[in-house]
């Protein structure tokens, strides 16, 4: 997914994770969830989940810091109402 240069956002979206990359990382751990529900002791899957979960969390933290909240729980009221004032995922 290409970054939209006309999004009008002030953050440097080019150096951070895009919404698509976050969606991709999130999908991986969600599909692993389905596998692990039926294979809860599969050590290969658990190791892979740990790695992919860490990657997702890092990508999400970077996205939240550089672009804006992904979930409502990411909003820090100390920063103001970032939920409605930061770029929408399709604008990044």
């Amino acid at each position, binding site marked *: 997914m290409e970054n939209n240069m006309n999004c009008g956002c002030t953050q440097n979206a080019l150096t951070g994770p895009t919404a698509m990359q976050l969606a991709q990382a999130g999908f991986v751990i969600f*599909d692993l969830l389905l596998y692990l529900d039926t294979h809860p002791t599969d050590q290969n899957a658990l190791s*892979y989940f740990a790695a992919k979960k860490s990657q997702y969390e890092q990508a999400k933290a970077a996205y939240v810091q550089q672009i804006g909240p992904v979930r409502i729980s990411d909003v820090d009221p100390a920063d103001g109402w970032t939920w409605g004032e930061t770029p929408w995922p399709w604008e990044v």
Partner: protein
Amino acid sequence: MACAAPMQAAPAPAACGCETPSEQTSREACLCNMSLAMSYVLMQGWAQTYEPAVALSRGTIFPELDLPFLAAGRIC
């Protein structure tokens, strides 16, 4: 490991009340003439996975589950 002999399935009922010509094209008519069967699902094993971008595009992280589903709407 040798496979056990398949269990004999019971024959389908000879008539199920929906064989009239006017119903032959209906979905229900097709289904009621089908034989009973036993289904099974193999236990998936851990194998290689797609890269995240491919996985999201294909709807699964597992190449072995990336299958074409071409039979939708083609029961009859």
